[in-house]
């Protein structure tokens, strides 16, 4: 039995005529300790998929199993890093992390919780900014706080919803390394949602493309056979990397084309000429 399993999951919003089917027939299984990336176009239903897995949404039909149990609600076992950081702006960095830690370890003493907060804020190298509010931080720093908050709860699985989407390339690279570093320390199961194929290849063991919605479904998976730890610069020359990258991009381009060609109606333009007011 897989660690996380999605069986024939359908998700639609609305009722009757307003009904839009976002996801259909999603089947996914992730083993313990695996790092899986799901790559897809914007608007293809990636966030919906994440919310189904973390328990914020319920599938219209089908089942989401986590360790064999159906997911009915959010759980501390599954930590989430949101796309838009979602820090509480009226709390400082320390307070944001503390709030999460306190919920995850309700029985522990305050000293333990404080130490944990400090450790995790230190881990994302934000110790000097621990008493600052989110508005005083840069985007990358805010995302690191979100990472620290999710990890400080000691989840068994980390779900990342385009965590680095809003960052510039350099910060992005650094944070990718940081996340990988943390992941490799205790090999938690990780699910990364991204729109960046390179990011997926660099970080994950497996990449699964999500066909664009409506009725988005998962495509064939691509295994990444590149030794860890991976080196970003060396990887560019790795034939395996090139092959996988090309295959995935080709696949995505194909479904992109297919999507375009669906609407090949020809519009007939009316035959009109400007009227002459002179004669």
């Amino acid at each position, binding site marked *: 039995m897989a660690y996380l399993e999605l069986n024939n999951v359908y998700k639609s919003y609305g009722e009757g005529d307003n009904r839009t089917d976002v996801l259909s027939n999603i089947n996914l299984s992730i083993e313990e300790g695996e790092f899986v990336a799901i790559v897809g176009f914007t608007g293809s239903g990636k966030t919906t998929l994440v919310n189904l897995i973390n328990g*914020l949404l319920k599938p219209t039909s089908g089942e989401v199993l986590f360790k064999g149990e159906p997911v009915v609600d959010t759980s*501390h076992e599954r930590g989430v890093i949101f796309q838009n*950081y*979602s820090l509480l702006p009226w709390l400082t960095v320390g307070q944001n992390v503390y*709030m999460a830690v306190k919920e995850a370890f309700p029985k522990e003493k305050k000293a333990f919780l404080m130490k944990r907060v400090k450790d995790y804020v230190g881990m994302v190298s934000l110790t000097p900014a621990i*008493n600052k509010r*989110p508005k005083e931080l840069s985007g990358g720093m805010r995302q690191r706080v979100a990472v620290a908050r999710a990890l400080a709860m000691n989840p068994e699985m980390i779900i990342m919803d385009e965590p680095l989407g809003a960052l510039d390339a350099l910060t992005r690279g650094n944070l990718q390394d940081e996340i990988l570093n943390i992941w490799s320390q205790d090999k938690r199961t990780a699910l990364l949602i991204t729109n960046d194929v390179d990011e997926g290849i660099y970080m994950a063991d497996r990449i699964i493309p999500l066909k664009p919605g409506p009725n988005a479904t998962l495509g064939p998976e691509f295994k990444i056979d590149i030794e860890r730890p991976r080196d970003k610069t060396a990887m560019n020359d790795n034939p395996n990397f090139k092959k996988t990258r090309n295959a995935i991009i080709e696949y995505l381009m194909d479904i992109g084309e297919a999507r375009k060609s669906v609407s090949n109606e020809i519009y007939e333009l009316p035959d009109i000429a400007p009227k002459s007011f002179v004669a």
Partner: protein
Amino acid sequence: MEQDITLNKEGQGLAFLKPLVAKFTPKFQKGDLVPWLKKSGITLLSILLFLGLWHMGSKALYNIEANYKIEKALTEQGQVAADAERDCIASGESSCQPNTLPSPTQVWASLQTLIADHKVINADKAAFNQKMAATNAKLVAKGKNAIVYTGRASFVDIVLTSIKTVFAGFLLALLIAVPIGVVIGLSPSLRSAFNWFIQIFKPVSPVVWYLLVFMIVKTLYIGDSSDNAFVISFISVGLCAMWATLVNTAMGVSSVDKDYINVAKVLKLGTFQKIFKVILPSSLPLIFTGLRITLSVAWMVLIAIELLAQSQGLGLFVWEEFQNGANDSNAKIIVAMFVIGIIGFLLDRIMLSVQNMVSFNKNEGV
């Protein structure tokens, strides 16, 4: 670098005093002087201009009324009476002065009178208390009520009564409107259930609120001879003013960013934790905007309600002075007007700084 985490709301307690302190300890740098002079010079100039226009206006009104009086004496009683009237007005005798818009100097003089009056009353009160101290001690020892000073209230007492009423009303509004607002904000079904109630009662005039409260309080206090004017007026003020807070709170609570709600869900906060740690903090800016409007509405309706309720405040003071028609009554009314305006301004400033203290940019967390 080892740093302590402050988990309390650090730097917030008295942070709102910072701008105030900064205002009173200006740090002048070279080049600041000219803009500063310009700014305060223009303010000063506008005040002088205002006083000048006021002075000239009141002078013109004074002349109109004086001329009319002389003219009237001339047509009704002849030349001798007209001359007597003219001399009387010129001599400044109070019995024949035109009773019109007072000039700035008259208003200033009235302010001095009111302050002097306050001192006299205070001395009177102190003397009374001293005289009665021994008697009162005996009365209290016997378990009876002490005899208190019941002379007329001074202007300062009147202002304090008004401020007390407005704060009591504001507190009442806060205690009613914020909890109800939170509850309706949280539940869409309650919101639609309460909507008619809010829509109907929100536009009701202060006078009608007063009458409604009067009907109820009068019955509750039946058989009790104690003065219930204060109770009636503060309840009416509170009921008049609470709507802005109620509506704003409900709106703030119902429009909490979905991201924050998701965070609360993912962290698995309990219902109370969710309300107090996520929903309330994120709607505080809107709640305080509502409270600020509430306070200014409360101060505005206070005057009318005190007048109706016969509560010893500024509203009644203004009305009584108008009915009184004494020579300096008009000047006293203008003094009261300025006091009302200045206190209203100060209250608004206080609320504004509190509001700035609790507000944050909605996109800061994103």
